[in-house]
């Protein structure tokens, strides 16, 4: 194991990175979509390095057997290469986690820890929304238009949002989505309170739903009173968790 230590570590790490980026969409639970090519390249490079380390470990041993005594010094040096630094064994933790039990996407627990609040950028007008009967819109986009748009671009539009369910006090419930910029460590929350007769029997926490409805104005624009925004729901359907569980900024 000593001789092949770094080979094993490099292959494990590379394999884990490739497993989540090349063979599936799992990487979207952890990092943003644009990182994929870099992950694939890094994973492949790590595999190559691991193979190189394994080959060197093997040929080194042959070399040793052939000329056992003369090259003890070189062997010392060779070892400092091939059984990498001890701290490197920590890499097995995330690598095995990704290979065996990939951790789930962040959900209601993370959303509840953080007060959902948008950047206070002040009120203003927004670019016009695309035409169409039912408008697919992100939870973050809906929230910022509902709270900050002096042009009321949501007025009279039927919108559809996808997110997971979180519960507030007094039976209120929200469609919630986390926004990730770089990796899951920087996740921020946006949420929309669901009202209307359809909203009466609230789905369970962390269920993924697609909600169609119209905007219910509330509070004065740009103040805490306008938060969280409301949606008068006409249909609530359960859906599968989307491949990318987070919204982009």
């Amino acid at each position, binding site marked *: 194991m000593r001789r092949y230590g770094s080979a094993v570590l490099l292959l494990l790490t590379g394999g884990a990175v490739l497993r989540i980026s090349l063979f599936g969409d799992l990487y979207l639970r952890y990092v943003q979509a644009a990182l994929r090519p870099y992950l694939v390249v890094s994973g492949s490079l790590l595999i190559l*390095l691991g193979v190189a380390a394994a080959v060197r470990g093997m040929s080194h041993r042959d070399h040793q057997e052939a000329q056992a005594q003369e090259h003890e010094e070189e062997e010392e040096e060779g070892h400092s*290469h091939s059984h*990498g630094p001890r701290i*490197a064994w920590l890499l097995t933790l995330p690598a095995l986690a990704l290979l065996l039990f990939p951790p789930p996407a962040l959900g209601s627990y993370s959303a509840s820890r953080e007060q959902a609040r*948008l*950047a206070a950028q002040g009120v203003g007008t927004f670019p016009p929304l695309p035409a169409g009967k039912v408008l697919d819109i992100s939870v973050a986009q809906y929230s910022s238009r509902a709270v900050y748009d002096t042009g009321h671009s949501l007025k009279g539009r039927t919108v559809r949002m996808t997110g997971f369910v979180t519960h507030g006090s007094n039976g209120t419930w929200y469609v919630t989505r986390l926004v990730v910029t770089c990796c899951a460590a920087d996740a921020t929350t946006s949420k929309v309170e669901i009202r209307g007769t359809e909203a009466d029997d609230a789905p369970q926490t962390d269920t993924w739903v697609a909600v169609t409805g119209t905007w219910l104005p509330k509070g004065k624009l740009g103040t805490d009173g306008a938060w969280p925004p409301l949606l008068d729901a006409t249909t609530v359907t359960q859906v599968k968790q989307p491949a990318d569980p987070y919204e982009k900024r």
Partner: protein
Amino acid sequence: MQNERTVVDGLRLAVRAMVYAVLGGAALTAIATVVSVLGPMLAIDLYTPPVAAWWTVFTAVAVQGVPFLLLGTVVSAAIGAFVPEQVFTRLLPRNQALAVPIAGAAGVVLPGCECASVPVASSLMRRGVAPAAALAFLLSAPAINPVVLVATSIAFPGQPKMVLGRLVASLATAVVMGWLWARFGREEWLRLPKGTRTTHSTAGVQAFVAGLQHDFLHAGGFLVLGAAAAATFNIAVPRSILDIFTGSSWLSLLLLALLAVVLCVCSEADAFVAASLSGFSPAAKLAFMVVGPMVDLKLIALQAGTFGRSFALRFSSTTWLVAVASSTLVGWWLL
């Protein structure tokens, strides 16, 4: 005769590789079977939502760090294997007081987050660059590269002063730290990375590959350590603590500067996190963005691994103070 020998050697190598693959594969399958049978029983009890969130944030920080760390180690191994000893000493002025700002401004060229800059700085030192200049580069590279500045301008639309403030305050911190090291730094605090590694007979490509493997594994271990610390704080520190301090602008600046250390948000994303911290003064947000790429738990772990623990603690704490001071000054002047 010679030919026969290499063929036999090759065959032996192939057979051995196959035996190892079969044995290793069997062992792995056995482990995987046991784990997948016993694992779920244990896991159901232990896998509460906070634990699950910890694992997700932990792997996320590690996964997102891997490409940048690899970029950094590729650059540093290339410097170690292919760039002749004299190049940097000739490029940089001999006078350290002059070399520091030049090295700091050169940070613009490394488009990565902070994981990439530690191995590069250490290989620069191995190649004879004065530590003061290499440290200025280490601090400025993740903070002032174009990717980070563009991200900042997107996060703060219509506030070009925020981008300018970040550039000025970060560069000032890096240069001041370089000068401080040139004046007060002691060689014995800095456990320079083993320079002997590339001196033996292997050179060129072989040295490059060996350096790459070693540097990546070494730094990767510390990245995992830092990721664990970041995930722990990310889950343990309630965000509502932020609301207590928004009242006092002084306290809030210090609080955000501390938050930058424990959250370990990568420098390409920290502008968005800063922008989402509503209720804080612009100077406090600036401090968050200046401190973040220079001092955080992940970075302290990486530096401790590369330059030694006593260096990492001294250097990081001083950098934190300088960064807070410089963002206070710049914030008061610009924002």
